[in-house]
Structure formats: C-alpha cells, structure tokens
C-alpha cells in the first residue's frame, strides 16, 4: 500500500493533523513519537491494549503450576511427619505466588511483543531516526487517489516535510 508521511516539529501540529485525518477518513494513520504523549493517544483514539489479559491468564496458569509442583512432588515422595500434612498448602503458597509473578510477567512481555509487533527485522516504511529524537511523524496509508488530499492536509497543519512512500 502506498502512503504519505508528514514530519512535524511540534506536538500540537501533529495532533491537529491526526484529528483531521481521522475525521476525513483518508486512510490508516500511524503516529511516530519520541515519547508517549496522552495528546496523541486522544487524537488517535486507539482500542484498549489487551496486554492485561496476558498477565491475568499467564499469572493464573503460573499460580496453578506453582502449587501443583510441590503438591505433586510431596505426594510422589512423601516425607511423613506425625500430625503434619504431606502436601501443606501454607508454605506452598510461596511457590504459587512466585510462579504466578514469574509466568504472569513473562506472559505480559510476550503480549507486548505480539501486539506491538516486535521483534521485527526490518524498519517499517516511513520510519525516520528523527522520530526517536524529538520530532513527530504521521504516516497515512491510503489509496493513490487520496494521496493528494492527505498531503495537502499534512502541509496545512505545519508538516515541515511531506513525502510519499510505498
């Protein structure tokens, strides 16, 4: 798909451009920003991140595994002490908790990678090293007949550089 990239020096210019691009429905908008800004998030209006579900289900799976291992091992090789439970859930809560945290956190990172699309071997079209420094980029992916409108809109809002890419 072809598209057009607008390069902005100021945050509010980028926000204005994104708001109007979304309103005009010219195409999919991707924003590059050196640091997360709530102004951009409000303009883009993205869906909620599902990463929290990875924490929930990963953590629950870890917790179950963390309890299961010592209970299973205690029953498999019982160390019988008079009047004491062979599989004692109170000390095993330590394993349940630790493995909950371990698997939950690692699942969260996996969720981040899956949904953010990293790791990736090649840089995406339109990426410019200046976007990690201090500038903002707005990449609009649209059919050829709308490229001109998108370019005009980006220039109107103060893009210092506009270029077409494919």
């Amino acid at each position, binding site marked *: 798909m072809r598209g057009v990239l607008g390069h902005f020096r*100021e945050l509010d210019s980028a926000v204005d451009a994104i708001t109007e691009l979304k309103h005009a429905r010219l195409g999919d908008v991707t924003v590059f920003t050196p*640091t*997360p800004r709530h102004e951009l998030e409000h303009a883009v209006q993205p869906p909620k991140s599902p990463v929290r579900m990875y924490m929930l289900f990963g953590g629950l799976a870890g917790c179950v595994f963390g309890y299961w291992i010592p209970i299973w091992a205690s029953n498999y090789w019982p160390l019988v002490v008079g009047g004491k439970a062979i599989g004692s859930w109170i000390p095993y809560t330590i*394993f349940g908790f*630790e493995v909950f945290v371990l698997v939950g956190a690692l699942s*969260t990172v996996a969720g981040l990678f899956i949904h953010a699309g990293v790791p990736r071997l090649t*840089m*995406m079209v339109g990426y410019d090293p200046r976007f990690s*420094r201090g500038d903002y980029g707005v990449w609009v992916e649209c059919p050829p007949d709308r490229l001109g409108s998108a370019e005009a809109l980006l220039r109107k809002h103060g893009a210092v550089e506009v270029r077409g890419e494919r």
Partner: protein
Amino acid sequence: MATIAYEPRRPNISSANVQLPAVRDYEQVDDDIIATLRPTKAWFLMLMTAVACLALGLGAFLYQLHQGLGVAGYNPPVMWGVYIITFVFWVGIGHAGTLISAILYLFRAGFRTTIYRCAEAMTVFAVMTAGLFPIIHLGRPWKFFWLIPYPNWRLLWPQFKSPLVWDVFAISTYLTISTTFLFVGLIPDIAVLRDRETNPLRRRILAFLSFGWRNTEREWRHFARAYLFLAAVSTPLVLSVHSVVSFDFAMAITPGWHTTIFPPYFVAGAIFSGIGMVFTIIIPIRKWFRLQHYVTINHLDAAAKLCLTTSMIVGCAYLVEFFIAWYGGVQAEQDYFWNRVFGQWWWAAWIMLTCNMILPLTLFSQKLRRNPAWLWILSIFINIGMWFERFVIVVPSLSHEFEPWQWTTYSPTWVDYSILIGSFGWFFMWFLLFVRQLPVVAISETKEIVPPRVRHVHVHTPEDAEDFEPQTGRAH
C-alpha cells in the same frame, strides 16, 4: 486547533518540584545522556580496581574450594557467617531498585524518573551478586543445582517445606523479573542509541537489541500497559522476596530469630540499604557525568526523605525487638538481646544503631538533605550499618543459643574478607560496564517530563503569560 496547557515552572528552589528546569528540549536529553557513554580514564581506573577486587575474591574462593570450608571463619555452632551476612546484604541492596522503578512508578512519584534506571541496574547486579553467596557457602558448591526441582534419574525432589528452597524460587524469580523490567524499559532507549550510532557494527548490535523498535503510538500504548502491569506484579514481589529471606531465620527456634516481626523488618531494612546504595552510586555519577540538571537537588531531597522514613521504620523495628524480648518473658531471648547490645557483640550492635538509626536523623535538616556531599558520606555509613545489621542478626544468635556450654565466638578469616571484597568488585565491574554501554538515565521517560515543542501555548493565568516564552513553553 489543539492548545496544550502548561503550568509555568519555577527555578530549582527548595520544593517538591521534580521537573527539570535546565533541560530545554528532547534533543538536549539525547545529547546529554548519550554523552555519558564515552569512556574516560577515571572509568578505566575504576573498572581495573573492580576487576582487581574480583580477582582477589575469586582467588580466595578457589583456595576455599581446594581446602574446604574450614578456611572460612566458621566456629560451631556459628555455621552461618560472612557469606550468609553478605547474601542478605546484597539481596537488600537489590530491593531499592524495584522500589524506585515499580512502587514509586505506581505512586506517580516524579523524582524517580531520572534515578530509576541506575537503581534498576543496581538491583540486577546486586541480586546477581547475592545469588553467588548461598553457593559459596555450600560445602560442595558444584551441587547447587540440586535445589532446583527438575525431573531426574533418581526421582529425587527438593524438600519444598525448606526455607532454602523458598529462597531459590524467590531469588530466581526476582532476578528474572528485575532483569526483564530493566530490559523492557531499555528497549526504546536502545532504539534512540541505534538511531544516533555512527559505528556500523555497534549500530547493528543496537538494532538487534532494540528489537526493531520504531516509536509508533501503537508500540508505546502496549509498552505503557505492559510496564504498568510489570510494576504492579513487581511490587508484591519486592515485599515477598525479603520476607522469604527473613523466613530463613524466622523459621528457626533460635533466640533473636524466631519472631513474626522479621518479614516487615527485613523489607524495611532492605529498602533502606538499597536507597543508601543508590546515593552511593548516583551522587558520583551525577557529578562525573555532569548530570546535575537531570538528577537535581530536588530529586535527592525527595529520595533523602524516603531514606529518613525507612530509617525510622528500621529504628522502630530494632526497638520493637527489644520490647518483644522483654514483654515475651523468655529468659533466653532477654539474655540474647542483653548480650547483643551490652555484652559480647556490643561493638557490632552500636555500629548498627549509630549508622542506621542515629546518623540518618540528620536528614530532618533540609540543608543536609540538599547537600550531596553529606548524602554520599551518610550513604557509606548506611552501607556499613546495614552490613553490620545482618552481622548482628546472624552471628550473636548462633553464638548465644539456649545451652551455655555452646556459647562461643566468631572471627572471619582473610578468606571471608577477600570474598566480601570480591563481591564488591563483581558488583561494580558489572555496573561500570553497564554505564558505558547503556544510558544510565532513562531517555524516553525523561522526555516525558520535558515539555514538548508546541506552536500554540495556552497558559493558565494571565499574569503567568507575561513571564512565558511561547517557543519553549518555559518561564523566563
């Protein structure tokens, strides 16, 4: 048209202001922090010193392997000594990193932004150091993996009711999560380094380590959510790890150990010692790397208040221990505490009380809280005091148990001291290598507290507008 509102900011006066008045824009953040990555002669000198200390410790450990544990200063029944003391000391140091990066993140404490990377790296290297000591303490250290539950030919499993196995799980989970937390936070900063790097080989390495991070809004959105949840699970993890370490002691029916106050007492002590080490590291770094306008006096002031608070919690725990011994009415406990403070181990107990309870009270003075030289000197006292706290917990209890005929003494040998020095060498070697390869101040998060460049500035009050510079969003 979007108008972005900013409060005019005041200069770096004594206040709770944790913003960075001397940082103009995002580009300056990149330039200043990337400049810290250039090696200097002083850095090489310190690295060589750290490696020399490590070599000394390694030599002593090899000697101990050859000769056996008898060359360490163990004197039955004092069979826990410098190695266990140093293990607890380093685990404690490792707690401040996650406290600063996770707990203060959840509390939205702004002063953490410029110091948390340093504290996180310190955590990872401190836990790496701590993990060595239970292994050094083993008679046959090459069998350490027997503590890990894995399917094996003899169908043997560890004793899951043993606090030592709890330790294995707690410490290894903590190391994994701390490392993950550090690395995930580093990804956007490595991308910044990648984009600024001119050396093609280094650029390729950084491109690999940054996982192709592109700073898209989508990446940041998932990143922020993942970071929040990592912080949320790291918070109880911090509290659990040192609680589990305290169970190593509290589960034993030994005077001075068998008490329910140990988990909160250990956690508070760990955070206190960790903040001490943060001061020990961050104050020279801000001076040598000229980062005074990032790690400002206001940041140090806020961290010093945290240090004072934890010191008072620790001091309270010390006093409550005495109260429990008196109120519990157990003769062995009372004798033990008397022996600890006025008997055989008075010198160690008073070093602990002076360094951890008395000297930190100077932080009630705002002038001293805002004096980096004093904070650094105090941090050294805190490090010493916290090592002695663990000495006072471990040695006096074992040397003064129930049976008077068992009462004995303990003197560490040169092997103990050499391995202790080696642990500092190991820790600082990794830390020094880190500060030369990766940013010691978080670039992306620092940018979050620097006002972005905007075309149209809206200020809150008309009188503020007179003193406002529209191009930079900054007060004159």
